Structures are given as C-alpha cells and as structure tokens.
C-alpha cells in the first residue's frame, strides 16, 4: 500500500519531470531560433548592399534613317511596365521617339528653335539633366530647350557673335536659377568667348537686358582639347593637350573673377573628355592614356584649388566621352574602342563594363533615373542595357575608411546621409562605432566602481536591516523609463552641469582629500567605544556629512580658483588653454550620469546577489583564523563571487551599448571622433532611431541602418560570448561552492 503510493507519486513526479524538460527545451530552442531568425532577417536586408550591379542587354534596334542624320540619342525607362524609349535628335531639328523594345517609332516633333531659321542644322546636343538640353546650330547660335513628356519648349536662345567668322568648335548655353544666361563659345583659332545676359525687370516694369561679353585671352587657350561648364554658368573648365586643367570662375556680371591652372598629369598626356558629375562640384577627367580621374576644388590656405580626389578604373584606349548619371555620383565613360565603363565616384567602385562587338559606339547616354544605358553606333544601330546599379556608393572603404568627399579638405570619416538631390551621401560607420564605445566607456567608468563598491558595502559591511531597505530601493531605479532619464538629463541636468563644471572637476580632488583626512582623524577616534560601534554597519552615517563637506569645499573653492587660475572663465580656459577642449553642454559626463542611472541598478543587483551567495561558512572560517573584514572580503568573498560580479559588469555593458533613448535625447547625436569627455557622440542605436523615419524602404540608407543593427548585434554578441568564456574560467578557478 505504502509502496504503491510511493511509486505512483514517483511516477507522477517523473512524468512532470519529463514534461518540464520538454517545455524548457522547447522554450530554449524557440528563443535561440527566434534570435537566429531576427539576425537572418536583418542580415538579409543588408545583403543587397554588397551585391554587384547588373546590366541586361535588350535586343538591338536600328534607327530608321528618316528626317535627317541622328545627332544625339537619349534614353528613358517607363516607371511601370518596363518600357524603354529612345529619343533621337536629328540634324534637321526634329526629335523622334522610338520604343526600344518593339523598334516601333512613336510620335515625332520639331524643335521650336528651328522654325526661325529652317536652313540651319543642329550640330551638337548636350544633355544638362532634368530634361534640359543645350543645342548648337550650324549658324553658331545656341539654344536651351526643355523636353517634357509631350512637348519641347525653348527656354532661351543666343546668337553667335556675328563679327567672328572663325568656325566654332564647341559652344553651349547655360541658365542660372536667377535667370542669368551664359554662353561659352570656343573657336577653331583658340579663342573662347563668354557672354552673360541678364534679363531683369526694372521698377517701372520694363524689361531690361544687360549683356556682357568677355574674350578669354590665355596663352594656354590654343591647346584646349576639352571644355565644360557648370549648369549655372558660374565656372568654366578646360583640359589641354599637354595635361593641364584650367578653371575660370565668373562673377555675377559675367566677368572672370578667378583663373587657376593645375598640371594634372606630370607626363603631359592630353585631356580628352571632361564632365561635371551630378552636383557640379566634381570634375571627371578622361585622358588619352585611358585614365579616369576626379578633381574638385579643395580649400587650402583660404584658396580653392583643383585637387584630385578620386581615381577610377582605367580604360585601355583614350577616353572619348563621359556621361554623368542624374541620380547619383555614377559616371559612364566611353573609350576609343567602344567599351563603356560605369564607375561610382565616391566609392571608386568599378560597376559595369559593357561594349559593342560590331562597330565602335559613337555616343552614349544614361536614362534620367540611372536605370538604362544606351549606346549608338555610327551605323545607326542602337544598343541598350537595363541597369540595376544597386548601391554603388557602398564599399568597405566608404563604410569604414576615410573618403575624400567633394567639398572636403581631406579624406574623412563622415556620417551625413541626407541632403538635396545632388547630395553625396556619406555612410562612414566608424564614427558611430566609435561613439557607441565612447559612450559605453564613460558610462561604465562611472557605473562599475559605484555599483560594485556599493554592492560590497551593502552585502558585507552594513546591517541586514539597512540592506533589506537599500537593495529594493536601488532596484527601483531600474523602473524609471529611459525616456524620462534622457529628458531629465537633456533639459534639467545639462545646464546645471554646465554651470557647475568647475565644481564638478574640483570635487574629484576635494572628495578624496577630505575623505583621507577624515580617515586619519578616525584612527584617533577609534579609541572611543561609540566610534567602534558605528563601524559595525553604520559607517555611512558618518561618511555622509564628510562627503557633504567635500562637496561644499568644491563649491566654495570653485569661485576663487576660476578667478585665479582660469582667468574667470573655466569653459573658455578649457577651449583656449593648453588642453584645447571645447566644452559642449551635451557631453559624455552627462551621458555617464544618464546611462549610469540605468546600468547601476543592474550591476548592483547582480553583484550583490553573487556576493551574498558566498556561503557564510567561508567567511566565518576566515574570521575565525583572525582575518579582518576587509581581508575576508578581498581574499575570500571576492574571488568566490568573481564570476557573478564579472557577469554583472558584462550585462551592464550590454545594456549600455544598446541603450537608445537616453543617448538620443541627451547627446547631440554628433558623429565626431574625439575621446574628450566634454563633448558628445552619436551611437549606433540612437543613429538607427534618428534616421530610420527618413530612410526610404529598400534604399541604401535603409539597408545601411540595418547594417548598423547587425554591427550592434555582433558587438554585444562578441562581448557576451567573451564574457561567458571568462566567467566559465573564473568559476572553474574560484568556484568553491
């Protein structure tokens, strides 16, 4: 009977055991599987960043020779439906549209400019982006037209100087935002004439046109082999046959205000093609040897000088034409053998290389969205490729290395992702990784000693009653939402900390000094019985006023010291004195307090638990052989509890690395790389929170932000794994219970 009962209850217990084991195993496996799934998900989003670009050739089409000789062919892709349309400009001043997929001609249109002088032929078409083209006619006139979906509109026209009879080599027309028109004409004898026309309305409402004509006299002019101008007509660039680059800058009236010549190639190779990349800052230079380089004005000693900022993949033959993409900093370059290279300026990545097998290409064009490339052979055959460039601006170097961005003085790590349409996005993750580690470092610097010593005191020195009260109180700190802490730190603590900056620094001196002095006095006082009774767990009652005295001393001294040593202004002295540190109100000290507030309860609680769990028998044995409390703690308790204490610190570290709201609100999210505790940082986690609303889903920024998440994961994963390994070793060595 008794036996039966026993076996039945054992059986139940066993059954429960098995069930529990399965449930726990299932739970554990689910947790691991979910973490793995999350990781796979975020890694999956980042993968397209590193996938190569694609170019798919579509069947070639031969343009029907009608209504004149083709001069220029543009290409555009329909947003939906996958259609691709070529726009052919003929020398008779007509444009015809051809469906590249079916080869069928679509509508046909005459250019409005041609109706005025039907005898003249179109000689050259230069695409300026956003549907604008600069045209050169056989009589030397230039015009600017805008091609919208269903009509062609002439924006401006300017005749050539009738007094010059020399043939024209190259000419174009530009229009600035303030409606100033600039025409640049290069004649066969080497002269360059720049004409600026400003249409203004007078106060009386009459049209007032001012024209200013300049002839650029230059001993180098005769050697010019290529020329280009920015879209506003403010800067003219030329390349010479002996490897020089010339830049003229024009003022508002159209007068050249600055001229600069740089020897671009020491071997004197000829410049054969010039184009300004999107944004009109970077000049892409193609040379006779097939080299492709990028130049931009770089400020040095207050002067802007052309400087080579990138070098792209070389061609095997001389570069004939360079075409800039209208969407990003990608350029297509065509060499004499008919090979087209696509390269990205920022990352210097070689994207795609395509070419025609039959006859060399005469002209290339890229679609406005950068999703198609077209090449026209002299025979009239047109080949086109559908492009998927992916994220051309991303490479390991742009993510982690220094990059020479346009407008910068030197290669830099920079994070600045958002700007206008012509913006060069900067995706360096180095400042973000740096910021994450910096913020965590200062937070741990404050939190680890405070919470560990706190835990030691509470678990080992103080009275049980006090311990019962203090532990939940500290743990209660963890319940304060981090958004509240961030808010308080940013708007309440920051101005206070700024005002009392010197006092804060002084307290690092006054507190220890006062404390040591107090301890010396205490040695004397220990003779009295009252004092010794205080030592049994009530030390903090005596130390508290001492700390108050130390703090008061710092407050009192800060005024006079600021006057004597720092010329009355501590922040200014920090900035201008030998340290040269700018004091920012949103700095790492603030973050140390903010993050510390969330991390301290975690570290304290776990460390206190592991200290209290050291068996009483061990401390009792230590005391019995005559060790002091401190000796017992240091030699017996701490080693035994070390795995737990280490784990506490590491969990705190993980919390600090991933904390978002406090850093988001209390720092300025400044992506700087500077270890100074007196300025801020931008962490990976806050960066994700700040930028994800701006990121178009599936775009480069979106994917880079997911890469930030992967990095954050890897960071915590490595630290936690390392910590676990260390903990295991510590446990093996010191785990005596």
């Amino acid at each position: 009977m008794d036996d039966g009962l026993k076996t039945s209850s054992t059986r139940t217990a066993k059954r429960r055991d098995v069930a529990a084991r399965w449930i726990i195993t299932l739970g554990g496996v689910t947790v691991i599987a979910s973490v793995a799934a999350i990781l796979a998900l975020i890694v999956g989003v980042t993968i397209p960043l590193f996938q190569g670009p694609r170019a798919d050739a579509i069947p070639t089409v031969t343009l029907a020779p009608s209504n004149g000789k083709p001069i220029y062919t543009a290409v555009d892709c329909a947003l939906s439906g996958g259609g691709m349309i070529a726009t052919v400009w003929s020398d008779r001043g007509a444009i015809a549209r051809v469906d590249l997929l079916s080869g069928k001609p679509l509508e046909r249109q005459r250019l409005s400019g041609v109706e005025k002088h039907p005898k003249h032929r179109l000689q050259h078409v230069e695409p300026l982006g956003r549907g604008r083209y600069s045209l050169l006619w056989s009589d030397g006139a230039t015009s600017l037209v805008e091609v919208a979906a269903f009509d062609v509109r002439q924006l401006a026209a300017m005749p050539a100087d009738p007094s010059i009879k020399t043939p024209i080599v190259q000419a174009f027309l530009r229009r600035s935002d303030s409606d100033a028109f600039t025409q640049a004409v290069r004649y066969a004898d080497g002269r360059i004439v720049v004409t600026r026309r400003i249409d203004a309305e007078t106060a009386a409402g009459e049209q007032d046109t001012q024209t200013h004509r300049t002839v650029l006299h230059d001993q180098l002019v005769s050697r010019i082999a290529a020329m280009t101008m920015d879209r506003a007509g403010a800067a003219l660039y030329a390349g010479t046959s002996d490897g020089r680059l010339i830049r003229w800058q024009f003022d508002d009236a159209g007068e050249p205000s600055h001229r600069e010549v740089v020897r671009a190639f020491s071997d004197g190779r000829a410049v054969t093609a010039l184009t300004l990349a999107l944004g009109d800052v970077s000049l892409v230079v193609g040379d006779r040897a097939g080299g492709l380089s990028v130049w931009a004005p770089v400020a040095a000693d207050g002067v802007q000088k052309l400087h080579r900022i990138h070098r792209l993949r070389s061609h095997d033959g001389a570069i004939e034409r360079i075409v800039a993409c209208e969407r990003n900093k990608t350029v297509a370059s065509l060499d004499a053998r008919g090979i087209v290279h696509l390269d990205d300026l920022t990352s210097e990545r070689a994207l795609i290389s395509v070419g025609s097998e039959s006859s060399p290409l005469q002209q290339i064009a890229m679609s406005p969205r950068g999703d198609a490339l077209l090449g026209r052979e002299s025979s009239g055959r047109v080949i086109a490729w559908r492009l998927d460039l992916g994220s051309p601006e991303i490479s390991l170097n742009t993510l982690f290395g220094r990059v020479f961005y346009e407008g910068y003085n030197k290669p830099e790590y920079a994070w600045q992702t958002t700007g206008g349409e012509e913006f060069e996005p900067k995706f360096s993750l180095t400042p973000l990784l740096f910021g994450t580690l910096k913020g965590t470092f200062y937070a741990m610097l404050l939190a680890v000693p405070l919470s560990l010593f706190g835990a030691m005191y509470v678990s080992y020195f103080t009275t049980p009653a006090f311990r019962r009260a203090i532990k939940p109180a500290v743990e209660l700190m963890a319940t304060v939402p981090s958004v509240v802490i961030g808010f308080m730190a940013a708007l309440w603590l920051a101005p206070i900390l700024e005002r009392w900056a010197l006092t804060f620094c002084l307290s690092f001196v006054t507190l220890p000094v006062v404390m040591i002095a107090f301890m010396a006095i205490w040695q004397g006082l220990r003779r009295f019985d009252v004092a010794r009774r205080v030592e049994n767990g009530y030390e903090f009652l005596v130390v508290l006023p001492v700390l108050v005295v130390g703090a008061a001393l710092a407050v009192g001294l800060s005024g006079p010291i600021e006057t004597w040593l720092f010329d009355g202004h501590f922040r200014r002295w920090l900035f201008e004195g030998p340290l040269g540190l700018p004091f920012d109100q949103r700095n790492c000290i603030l973050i140390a307090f903010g993050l510390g507030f969330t991390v301290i309860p975690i570290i304290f609680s776990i460390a206190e638990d592991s200290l209290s769990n050291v068996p009483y028998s061990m401390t009792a044995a230590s005391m019995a052989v005559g060790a002091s409390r401190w000796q017992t703690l240091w030699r017996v308790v701490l080693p035994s509890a070390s795995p737990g204490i280490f784990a506490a610190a590491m969990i705190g570290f993980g919390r600090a690395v991933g904390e978002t709201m406090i850093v988001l609100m209390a720092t300025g999210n400044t992506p700087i790389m500077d270890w100074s505790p007196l300025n801020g940082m931008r962490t990976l986690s806050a960066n994700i929170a700040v930028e994800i609303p701006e990121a178009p889903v599936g775009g480069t920024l979106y994917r880079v932000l997911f890469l930030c998440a992967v990095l954050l994961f890897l960071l915590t994963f490595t630290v936690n794994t390392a910590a676990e390994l260390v903990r295991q070793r510590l446990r093996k060595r010191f785990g005596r219970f």
Partner: protein
Amino acid sequence: MRRTWTFGPATVVLGVFFGLAASAWTQAEDATVVPYEKVSGVDGSLNSIGSDTLNNLMTYWAEAFNRLYPNVKIQVEGKGSATAPPALAAGTAQLGPMSRRMKPEEEDAFEKKHGFRPTRISVALDCLAIYVHKDNPLKGLTLAQADGVFSKTRRRGGSEINRWGQVGLENRWAAMPISLYGRNSASGTYAYFKEHVLNKGDYKDTVKEQPGSAAVVNGVAGDRAGIGYSGIGYRTSEVRAIPLAKDANSPMVEPAFDNVLNGKYPLGRTLYIYVAKRPNEPMPKLVEEFLKFVLSAEGQQIVIKDGYGRLPAQVVARQLELLK
C-alpha cells in the same frame, strides 16, 4: 477626435512642450479669403502622416473641422516630412503634410504605385529662424556667416566660425565657443536649412541633432553659448530670433511673415499638404472638404494663431483651383 501618440521621440518632446509651441503672431487680416461653407454628407475617417513642423497645425485644423463634422474621425501623426510620401503611396494616409517639396525619388515611388503624380497643396507659410540665447547681444548674421557657423564645407565662401567673437560679440562673449543645435535628418527643416543656408553643403559634425523643433529651442534656451534653427512658431521668451541678411551689402531683416511675403527675409518657406488626386477626377469628398476648410478664412485664421503665416489670397485661389 483622436490624437495618435506615436512612440517617436519627436512627439514625446513636442508633447511636453506643446503649450510653449504656439505663440501668437500678428499678421494683417485678408478679406478676400472666403469663409468656409458647411456641406452635407461629409463623414468617414482621415489619416494624416507627415511633417513634425505641421503637426500642431494639422491637429488644430482637425479639431476645428471635427467641430463642424462630428462624424468625421481624423488621426494626425507627425514624425517628419519624409514619412509622408511612403504613407501616401501605400494609402495608409490620405493627407501628407510636408514642410518641403517631395524629392523626385519620392514622387517616382508614388507614381509607380498609382500611375499619376501626387498633388501638392500649399497651406501655410513658415518662417525659419535662427535662435540664440535671450542674453546674447548678437545683432544678426549674414547667410555666409550662418554658413560658416553651421557648415564644414562652407559653400558660401565664408570662413570657419566657432567663437562668438568672430561674429562681432565683445567682452566675455568674444572667446565663448559657439554651441550648435539643429534638427535630425528626417525633418524638412533640416533639409531646408541645408539647402538654403549651407547651399547644399554639409553640416558640421558638432551640430547637436535634436529630435523635435521644440527641443532645438529648449536646447538653445538652456545654453548661453547656443545657436540653433527652427520654425518661428516655436519661438519662446527664453530665446531670441535674430535678423538675417542675404549678403554683406543687404540690410539685416527681422524674421516676420511680412518680410517673407515681400521677399526680404531669406528663410521663408511654404508648408504643403500632399494628396493623391487622380487627374481629371474629383477627389474623395472628405479630403476635398478638409482642404477647402484649411484654405478658408477660418483655416487660415488657425494658421495665424499657431504662429505661422497665412497664404496670400491669390495663392489660396490657385490652390483651390488645384482641388478641382
């Protein structure tokens, strides 16, 4: 009416400072903007997702519109202009308030989904101001100086400015380093300032990016060396909006809507609501009536109350044309 509190930093900060955000701003009344006429058969629900700058204004409009049509439910969410285009494209919002124009990629994404371009309706004027601490004696800045203060690329050609002495302050201000405050990149204000002050250059890394317009003003209010930019609607007594000059030869102009309208103040901008309207088809009645209300005398009165500038009558007329 329900106000959706999204768990975004901007809304949290904004919520706390909600009371400070609106400062009354005087602007001459215009008689030619017609009052709103209530029509029958308006009900349903409207979602608005977009600009943080327009968040308060949208809420006020929604409240007033709701008083006219108690059966209408309007939810307003404002995390930044960049959140409007995807919401409009996906159809999760019928109204997309934006403090800047859509970028071509954003319009493309919309067109890909719907087959037509989104319609842009101007609804109010904003005046971007540069704020300094109220004790700061700064007289004003030229745009080139502001560029030198905020930019590391300095496209306006000025020199680098990092101390108050470099913009003419004296005595103890002279050596004080300038402390920079700005918006985060999701904000239309960030993009606008970048384009119009930095000439599309880059911000310095030391600009402290704040998650909301009110947070910028509060940052400057608590930092004597601070300078920051934000809409004029967020002005408080703790900060001073400084006059700006287009260049060294132009006069310093106070930030005010009259100066925006006459083109003297360089940082005026239009605020928009984007909607999805099929060409040659009327839009949903609820959306149309809401926009008509916004463009009515009452709607524009709310604009003035919230510290923004109302549209001139002829602009309102042009916007009403777009609705048809």
